[in-house]
């Protein structure tokens, strides 16, 4: 037991050490860590997920209460006021945000967490070089703690501005197109090198305050300049990556103030965000580096223009489409972000119920990168009350179902159903795993108008023999399909 106390004592940097009190604090952190891990594990199953995350929230409460018992905390008025203000700000934000805006909301929330991590880093750094009131001595900083604080502000500050930029792009406050200039990557690399130089200086000589603050400033700037050249379509990868950075910043905070729950939670998030961003890149058929440095989508539209226009795609009227849908045995709906933009998810459910009433079966094929963040459309469809059992989230599974489907309905999706990804080696999409809706008997494409998708690439699917276009706003088009099917039903 004395061993354990010694270990815990070593982790605790408070001025007076009271073993029993520290044991309680550390126990609360341990409980919080366990709840966090169990909470994340519960997310592997949809039916257990909610309760698991509620427990994780309880874990957070444990960690906070545990910290407040910490002997290092001397005044409470600012803490209480801060907690109240945070809760007042956070509650309406969380309850009002529409599900379509989830990606920018998460980016925004990241920025807040990162501001906290960065500020804590600055406070700890200042504290280390402020003379003690009683003894007049400065606590100073070991090389190791200096490194941890450096990491903390480096990742923290980068995440703050990077998240705000991602938020701006997703919210369309800033253009979604990549903003680039000549030698941009070289400038970013140079600045990064300077930041790392400062970092090295800080580790070598922890009392070099200018190096510390220069690093914060450079990092803030890098957050902006690294996200600006990344296209709006690639924001899901950026948001997951910032997720990872926010985690690393939190873990570094844990190293700096000797707190295990911060290290554990930060490591979990760091790993999670990293995996997700790699998975996203893979689903878009791009290397991770290509997303970060590629400025995708800036050159593509010009190249795409040359091919198109020559062929005409066939259209179909809502009445004819409705008849086919009403008698279809199996229908697969392939939604893209266009469906979410048009807010067509509720009317989709109505369509689905009508087809089911006629004896048909409806499934949704959800591509990993459909929407503005990983799994985004699943959330939007679930919000509309569509059972998650009807969602096909695996590309291979969905393609198997599509082969035997009577009708495939594409709603506001483009790149994820582009046959060029399999057929045209010169296409920027080549190699990306896609759905093959053209293997169904008939394909309906609901699309706002002629023209290319988000990536600016022409889609030959629209010219296939079994592809029929329904131009118009997704909500209106599906609305008229629903009306027609209802009319059919009544006439019987």
């Amino acid at each position, binding site marked *: 037991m004395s061993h354990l106390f010694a*270990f815990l004592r*070593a*982790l605790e940097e408070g001025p007076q050490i009271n073993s029993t009190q520290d044991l309680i604090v550390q126990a609360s952190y341990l409980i919080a860590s366990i709840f966090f*891990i169990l909470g994340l594990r519960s*997310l592997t199953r*949809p*039916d257990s997920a*909610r309760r698991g995350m*509620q427990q994780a929230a309880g874990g*957070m409460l444990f960690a906070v209460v545990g910290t407040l018992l910490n002997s*290092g905390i*001397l005044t409470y008025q*600012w803490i209480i*006021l801060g907690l109240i203000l*945070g*809760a007042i*700000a956070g*509650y309406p934000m*969380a309850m009002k*945000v529409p599900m379509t805006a*989830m990606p920018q*909301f998460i980016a925004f*929330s*990241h920025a*807040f*967490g990162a501001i*906290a991590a960065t*500020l804590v880093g600055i*406070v*700890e750094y*200042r*504290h280390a070089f*402020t003379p003690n009131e009683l003894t007049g001595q400065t606590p100073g900083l070991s090389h190791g703690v200096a490194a941890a604080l450096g990491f903390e502000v480096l990742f923290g500050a980068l995440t703050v501005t990077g998240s705000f930029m991602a938020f701006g792009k997703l919210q369309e406050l800033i253009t979604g197109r990549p903003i680039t200039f000549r030698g941009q990557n070289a400038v970013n690399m140079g600045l990064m090198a300077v930041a790392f130089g400062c970092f090295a200086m800080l580790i070598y000589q922890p009392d070099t305050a200018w190096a510390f603050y220069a690093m914060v400033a450079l990092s803030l700037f890098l957050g902006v300049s690294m996200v600006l050249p990344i296209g709006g379509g690639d924001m899901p990868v950026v948001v997951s990556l910032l997720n990872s950075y926010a*985690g690393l910043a*939190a873990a570094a*905070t*844990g190293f700096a*103030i000797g707190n295990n*729950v*911060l*290290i554990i*939670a930060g*490591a*979990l*998030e760091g*790993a*999670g965000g990293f*995996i997700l961003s790699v998975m996203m890149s893979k689903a878009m058929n791009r290397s991770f580096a290509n997303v970060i440095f590629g400025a995708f989508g800036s050159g593509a539209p010009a190249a795409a223009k040359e091919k198109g226009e020559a062929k005409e795609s066939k259209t179909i009227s809502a009445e004819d489409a409705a008849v086919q849908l009403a008698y279809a045995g199996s229908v697969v709906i392939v939604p893209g972000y266009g469906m979410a933009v048009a807010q067509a998810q*509720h009317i989709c459910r109505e369509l689905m119920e009508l087809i089911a009433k006629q004896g048909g079966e409806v499934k949704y094929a959800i591509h990993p990168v459909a929407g503005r963040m*990983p*799994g985004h459309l*699943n*959330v939007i469809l*679930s*919000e*509309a*009350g569509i059972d998650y*059992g009807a969602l096909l*989230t*695996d590309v291979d599974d969905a393609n198997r179902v599509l082969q035997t489907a009577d009708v495939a309905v594409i709603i506001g999706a483009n790149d994820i159903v582009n046959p060029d990804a399999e057929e045209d080696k010169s296409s920027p999409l080549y190699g990306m795993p896609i759905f093959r809706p053209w293997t169904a008997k008939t394909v309906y494409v609901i699309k706002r108008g002629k023209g290319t998708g988000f990536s600016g690439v022409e889609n030959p699917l629209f010219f296939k023999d079994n592809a029929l276009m329904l131009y118009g706003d997704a909500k209106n088009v599906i609305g008229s399909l629903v009306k027609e099917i209802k009319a059919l039903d009544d006439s019987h």
Partner: protein
Amino acid sequence: MTQIFQLYVFILAGFIGFQIIQKVPPLLHTPLMSATNAISGISLVGALVAAGGQYGKVSTILGFIAVVCAATNVVAGFLITDRMLAMFGGPKKKPETAPEAGK
């Protein structure tokens, strides 16, 4: 020595993170991101120490701002995660109320 222990904790927790998160189905990737976002609000713990440690006026103000930001992150993060997961709630059950009216 302390920092070696911390490194152990970090690496092992990272492994757990990798293992668990790889098993999360794409269906729940958005809630997963919002969940990890909420958990990263754990910076709140650091912010509490900074705000309550009586490190001087400037530090207290910075710490206070950190507490507000981190608390916002925690509260908003967990609430929104819960809101999303509620929609994936009961297995294979259709909601009775009109979707537009709810929430």
